[in-house]
């Protein structure tokens, strides 16, 4: 049974209602021109990654009902029998519309997967007529369109048979990952030999050396699982980037962690995954000392909820069983929320799969994306190339950093200790944290200093361009938001030369105060200080001989700190 006509109607309707001006394809440029354009984009594009690209947008769908059984290794009993392989596709085309020839060249593949939601109106039933199914996968067309216009083959999977489902033998997170991999196998076949349902439409047109995955909610955990399984089982798909939007992190048996560039988009007003468990995935990815490290980024969006990233889950789009799950103050509109996704997810894949490196300033929080000036967003980022002065993960020792250097502090700190910055478990400072890391807590009520020394062999930092640290003000009644406080970050050389850069901690713009709505959360974001800034007042500051990093606190405050590092 096929539900393609119904799905096609939904595609048209949802695209119209999305009102996404950025989804309109231009009508004049060829894809060859597009590639030339991409190479010569101006730096200002970093602020407008959601701008539609030059390619025409082709549309397609595929639907293989009951295509395969998901059967655990060593078993003959399917954990998920008769799984459908169904998706909607947007791709760069020679003309706009359904089934148009694919534009010349090979195009990177981006695959999206939705999360858990009703499958039939309004229940977890899987027996309603195909035309009545909730088209959960059609809610990301606003992203697919922009991706396709920039030369990606963009696919959104309908995870019907792994949604509202499960098994003793295989978690639905693993099942989601394996479903993604099944789709990748299809795309490999279509690239190499073609095949149903479109013959040779995509033959020779898929750049299988550049694959990106994106997932929302349980789909976020699912795509991370896909990358994990692909690597663990040697399946050979060249997955180069993973994005998770408001993801879960709750498979009880496996903590999936990607080993490729990872971008986490987290909504502070999430009323579904309201404990923000997905934040843990940022901390666990590319931990200090991990054998394979890659860059990772997190965008924390005040006022965004769980559902509005998917238009099908958004009440104003009129699909059954949608709801606004968000709560707390400072909510952003559904349109702005999707613009946040578009202005970050699209640039992430363009940067990772198309080498559009000038999006770097966006992910370092140095530019504000167009249209989002009024949205409070905070970035965390860790570069693959870095010198970790202290990641606080090498034992509960506040006197020695990760490089083995001495850590000293002035005697008047109210709090000076390391804690688990998590929501539960032993050695917590308080349960307002949502991460999965060990870090430092400093409290002060008079001017105080904290100094972390670099051992003699580690003092050459000339190969780096910035000093970065993760920091967040801690949610606690004794730490009111409007208390005057400031931080100066200093570098001291072996010769005793000191240069400093100051930050005002009393506001939320440089270091966010914890989000007090929605249950209260303390979140650390990255402060990145270019080394050039340290040299502005002292051009002679020798980067070959940095002896220590000094944090100098004034006023009254309480902060958590993690990942002090020199970075690119």
């Amino acid at each position, binding site marked *: 049974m096929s539900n393609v006509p119904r799905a096609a109607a939904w595609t048209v309707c949802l695209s119209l209602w999305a009102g996404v001006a950025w989804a309109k394809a231009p009508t004049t440029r060829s894809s060859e021109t597009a590639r030339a354009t991409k190479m010569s984009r101006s730096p200002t594009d970093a602020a407008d990654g959601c701008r539609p690209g030059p390619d025409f947008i082709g549309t397609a769908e595929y639907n293989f009902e009951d295509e395969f059984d998901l059967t655990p290794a060593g078993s003959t009993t399917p954990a998920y029998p008769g799984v459908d392989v169904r998706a909607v596709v947007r791709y760069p085309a020679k003309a706009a519309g359904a089934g148009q020839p694919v534009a010349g060249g090979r195009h990177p593949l981006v695959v999206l997967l939705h999360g858990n939601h009703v499958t039939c109106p309004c229940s977890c039933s899987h027996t309603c007529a195909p035309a009545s199914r909730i088209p959960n996968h059609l809610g990301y067309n606003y992203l697919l369109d922009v991706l396709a216009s920039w030369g990606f083959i963009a696919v959104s999977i309908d995870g019907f048979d792994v949604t509202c*489902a499960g098994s003793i033998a295989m978690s639905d997170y693993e099942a989601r990952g394996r479903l993604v991999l099944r789709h990748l196998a299809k795309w490999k076949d279509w690239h190499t030999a073609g095949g149903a349902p479109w013959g040779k439409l995509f033959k020779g047109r898929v750049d299988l050396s550049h694959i990106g995955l994106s997932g929302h909610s349980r789909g976020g955990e699912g795509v991370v699982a896909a990358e994990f399984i692909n690597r*663990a089982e040697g399946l050979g798909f060249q997955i180069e980037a993973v994005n998770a939007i408001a993801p879960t992190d709750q498979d009880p048996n496996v903590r999936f962690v990607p080993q490729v560039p990872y971008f986490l988009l987290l909504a502070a007003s999430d009323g*579904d995954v*309201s404990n923000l468990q997905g934040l843990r995935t940022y901390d666990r990815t590319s931990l200090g000392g991990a054998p394979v490290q890659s860059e990772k980024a997190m965008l924390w969006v005040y006022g965004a909820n769980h559902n509005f990233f998917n238009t099908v889950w958004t009440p104003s789009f009129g699909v*059954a069983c949608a709801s606004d799950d968000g709560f707390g103050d400072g909510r952003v509109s559904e349109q702005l929320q999707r613009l946040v996704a578009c202005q970050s997810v699209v640039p992430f894949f363009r940067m990772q799969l198309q080498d559009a490196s000038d999006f770097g300033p966006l992910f370092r929080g140095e530019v504000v994306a167009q249209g989002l000036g009024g949205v409070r967003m905070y970035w965390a980022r860790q570069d693959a190339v870095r010198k970790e002065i202290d990641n606080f993960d090498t034992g509960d020792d506040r006197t020695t950093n990760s490089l083995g250097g001495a850590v000293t502090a002035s005697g008047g700190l109210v709090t000076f200790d390391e804690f688990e910055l998590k929501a539960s478990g032993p050695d917590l400072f308080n349960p307002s944290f949502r991460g999965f890391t060990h870090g430092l807590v400093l409290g002060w009520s008079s001017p105080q200093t904290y100094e972390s020394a670099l051992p003699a062999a580690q003092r050459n930092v000339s190969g780096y361009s910035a000093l970065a640290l993760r920091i967040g003000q801690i949610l606690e009644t004794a730490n009111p938001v409007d208390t005057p406080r400031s931080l100066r970050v200093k570098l001291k050389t072996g010769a005793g030369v000191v240069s400093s850069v100051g930050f005002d901690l009393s506001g939320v713009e440089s270091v966010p105060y914890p989000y007090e709505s929605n249950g209260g959360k303390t979140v650390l974001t990255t402060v990145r200080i270019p080394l050039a800034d340290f040299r502005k007042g002292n051009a002679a500051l020798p980067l070959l001989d940095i002896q220590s990093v000094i944090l100098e606190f004034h006023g009254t405050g309480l902060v958590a700190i993690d990942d002090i590092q020199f970075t690119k």
Partner: protein
Amino acid sequence: MRTTMLACLFLAVGASKEAPMDGGLHPYQQPPKARDFSAEAVVIPSQAIGKTVIRAQPSLGVEIKVRVEDYLPRGREPTLLIGGVPVEGRSWVSGTEGNVTTLSFLVEKPELLKEGAEVTLQTADEATRVRVPGKLQLGQIKPLQPEEEKRQGLPPLQGWLKQGR
């Protein structure tokens, strides 16, 4: 275009239905309407992902099935508590009939299963916690078929339950 928009509007009016909201509560904050529960012994199969061994050998477990009315599926896993202790294991939707959804929870530790214990369910934070009618009766847990126990090399249910005492 106008025709298409009208068709879409018709579709919307015909299909639009937000999740029910009772008492002004947010739909995701509403306590679940738990109806009843049952329990049965199950085989937890061995499992691995590549070299990551999740379970080297099959083991015995108990599946608690809780029937819930008007269940709102979501990203966050529901939590089952037995005698106030959370079951930190796998959960999933194992059946749907009309407006009744069956949620399954896998109990892997026999010490969690206490005679006469109350069973509670929460779908999010503690405010959503509700008591499931009935009390846990260990003698009412449906055992595996003896030949299945033997085939899998698993202990009888009663012996497994005693490990937790």
